[in-house]
């Protein structure tokens, strides 16, 4: 058993840290959010040049051939920097699907992701479906060699920046059947695709996406028709593992900032960190963080285990991360007093991102149930 990082992994971490130091201080991030695009294309290109967009892909596909631990390192560092650019959406989620796609699909698409030419987004959630990955009404009906796609996907993270979407759609079965779900690669500019783009509360962007008789060639299906559910669950678990890593990055910044603030902020003639009730709160924040780190390592190490074990690991980790995100986010604001409520200080921004990670791909209640049913 060993929880240490290799030299190569430490190097990777250092590379990201220095990239963030040079490009992603709080003011630059703010400027990126307020810019026309809402993200930085230049940063995206830099990520490509650093090889980061190729982390999980095989050498044959042009990637770095790294595993979950490396993805975890990237996501954790991005969490510390509150990075807006859609790394998890493109590389971990959509990349996760494409890694398992056919030879010709990999050849066609992966090089464009790795080079930074294309951003991708995963359109899965539907208004009635909440966090249930199989509650799908968006429908793809087959006619000869073509599918026709219809329906509405909601809150598609990163879609405003994307060129391509991966869409989960029903090709047979009832609304929440696990059987009969297929995955399609859809060009965002295809006829019949409309997007209503908007900002999200954590500074990112998302879209409501509707499909109206969108024609899709049958060569754009990932895997077998109607059999995509297991793959979706796998890739979502990988995404959850990366989100957990992002969350612990954000938590560590909040905890450090809070401890630092309590050491310097004086009231009643002493640093507020001298008040025992605040000390205990910070100790609880610290413990929540450590527990979250443990669960994040655990899930990332278990992603390649059998399905049941993996699902349990992902849901367990997400429960811990949801609870810790809430506690740490709220406590950090509280201990900063009025300053914690301001847009000017970074604390509120980390708090908001953590609150959104809580709901992404299922909140604590959802994953408690999944965990229990996998036990």
């Amino acid at each position: 058993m060993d929880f240490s990082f290799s030299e190569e992994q430490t190097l990777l971490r250092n590379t990201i840290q220095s990239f963030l130091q040079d490009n992603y201080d709080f003011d630059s991030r703010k400027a990126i959010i307020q810019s026309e695009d809402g993200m930085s294309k230049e940063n995206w290109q830099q990520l490509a040049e650093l090889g980061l967009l190729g982390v999980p892909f095989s050498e044959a596909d042009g990637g770095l051939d790294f595993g979950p631990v490396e993805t975890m390192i990237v996501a954790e560092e991005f969490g510390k920097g509150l990075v807006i650019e859609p790394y998890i959406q493109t590389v971990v989620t959509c990349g996760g699907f494409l890694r398992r796609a056919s030879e010709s699909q990999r050849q066609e698409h992966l090089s464009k992701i790795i080079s930074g030419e294309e951003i991708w987004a995963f359109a899965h959630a539907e208004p009635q479906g909440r966090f249930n990955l199989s509650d799908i009404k968006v429908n793809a009906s087959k006619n000869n060699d073509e599918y026709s796609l219809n329906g509405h996907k909601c809150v598609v993270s990163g879609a405003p920046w994307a060129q391509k979407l991966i869409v989960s759609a029903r090709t047979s079965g009832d609304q929440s059947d696990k059987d009969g779900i297929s995955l399609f690669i859809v060009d965002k500019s295809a006829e019949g695709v409309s997007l209503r783009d908007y900002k999200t509360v954590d500074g990112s962007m998302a879209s409501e996406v509707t499909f109206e008789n969108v024609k899709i060639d049958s060569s754009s299906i990932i895997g077998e028709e109607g059999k995509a559910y297991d793959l979706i669950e796998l890739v979502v678990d990988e995404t959850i593992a990366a989100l957990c890593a992002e969350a612990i990055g954000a938590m560590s910044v909040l905890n450090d900032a809070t401890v630092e603030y309590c050491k310097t902020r004086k009231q009643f003639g002493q640093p507020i960190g001298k008040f025992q009730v605040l000390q205990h709160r910070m100790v609880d924040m610290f413990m929540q963080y450590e527990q979250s780190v443990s669960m994040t390592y655990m899930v990332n190490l278990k992603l390649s285990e059998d399905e049941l074990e993996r699902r349990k690991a992902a849901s367990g980790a997400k429960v811990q991360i949801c609870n810790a995100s809430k506690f740490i986010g709220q406590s950090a604001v509280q201990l900063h007093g009025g300053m914690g409520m301001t847009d000017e200080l970074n604390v509120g921004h980390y708090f908001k991102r953590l609150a959104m990670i809580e709901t992404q791909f299922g909140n604590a209640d959802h994953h408690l149930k999944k965990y229990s049913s996998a036990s």
Partner: protein
Amino acid sequence: MDLEFTKSDQEFREEVRQFIANNFSQPNASGQNIEKYHEVTSDQMKEGILEWHKTLYKKGWLAPHWPEEYGGVDWSITQRYIWDQECANAGTTPLIPFGLTMLGPVIIAYGNDHQKDWVLKGILSGEDWWCQGYSEPGAGSDLASLRTKAEKVGDHYIVNGHKIWTTLAQYADWMFCLVRTSSDGKPQEGISFLLIDMKTPGIDVKPIITVDGGHEVNEVFLEDVKVPVENLVGEENMGWTIAKFLLGNERTGIAGVARSKKAISRLKEIANAEYNDGKPLMVDPSFNQKVTELEVELTALEYTELRTLAKESKGEGPGAESSILKIKGTEIQQKISELTLEAIGNYASPYLTPLSVRSFGSNYPEVGPDYSQGVAQNYFGMRKTSIYGGSNEIQRNIIAKMVLGL
């Protein structure tokens, strides 16, 4: 001891309900945060908030907690309770507390006749919008360490200093302000309570944007601001006594039981409309339990508040136990906002304003159900309630010291 509503209470409820139905209409947006919907100008926003205030002023129902001779209403605590409930149920615009709840009672208790006349009149008519100038960058929880200085020069005070977190100062005509008039003795002993005209030269108001994107609080800079000595309330250096009196009143108002009840029923409506695995979220056992627990806790708070009010009506004015109302009231409000955020699922994340959503064009889907609008911002914004009005840590310190004698 009884919990009955008398026949006349019932009639009162009917009368109040009718009055609200006939006289209240929702302004174009609700609550204190509407300015972030930038289509609303600052003046319109102020107008919107004051509309209900003015309606109540005309009716004579604006200040139930003031003595009748000063423009209050002779209502029993039961009637006040009914009034709060009915207003909450109808979702009436919250009244701005700075004049009505905070300064009014101070002037009634400590003001001279001249102040009683002009200050109370201006509050009631809505002509004077007041803001609270207590906190400073270095003096938050430790309010007594405040440094904004007032020096007496002839028949004026010259005020210099820096106030912060001043809620809605951007609309204010006046500020009641704690200033340092002496540095002798304990810090509490050199503080005075001044009324400052916001139009006086030397006052600069700068906005602070909060995490929810709203402009509610401000910094107020004071540089050689001339304040006539007749604007001193009470005597010089007795400001701390007045400040404590005021904070006691601020705390009771903060429980917000009736509005929390309304918010819980709204939460249930939302959870009934949201689907989870094909069934309404409200029937999901774990979600249902969380809402139910909150409801029980709110009931407990309701009766704690009624007990406090009953004591108060017998002249046993709010003691330190009113801190319970502040702590529990705000914790419940925060929890409601948290569960509401949880209820709307994926639609937690869009950052929209109600006006921009609707005007996007018919080819595009709407972004989430109406009830999801602003829910996340509200959750973020509600974090303030355990910080302001004396933070919940400070309230616990007060109970520990004053009630438990620790």
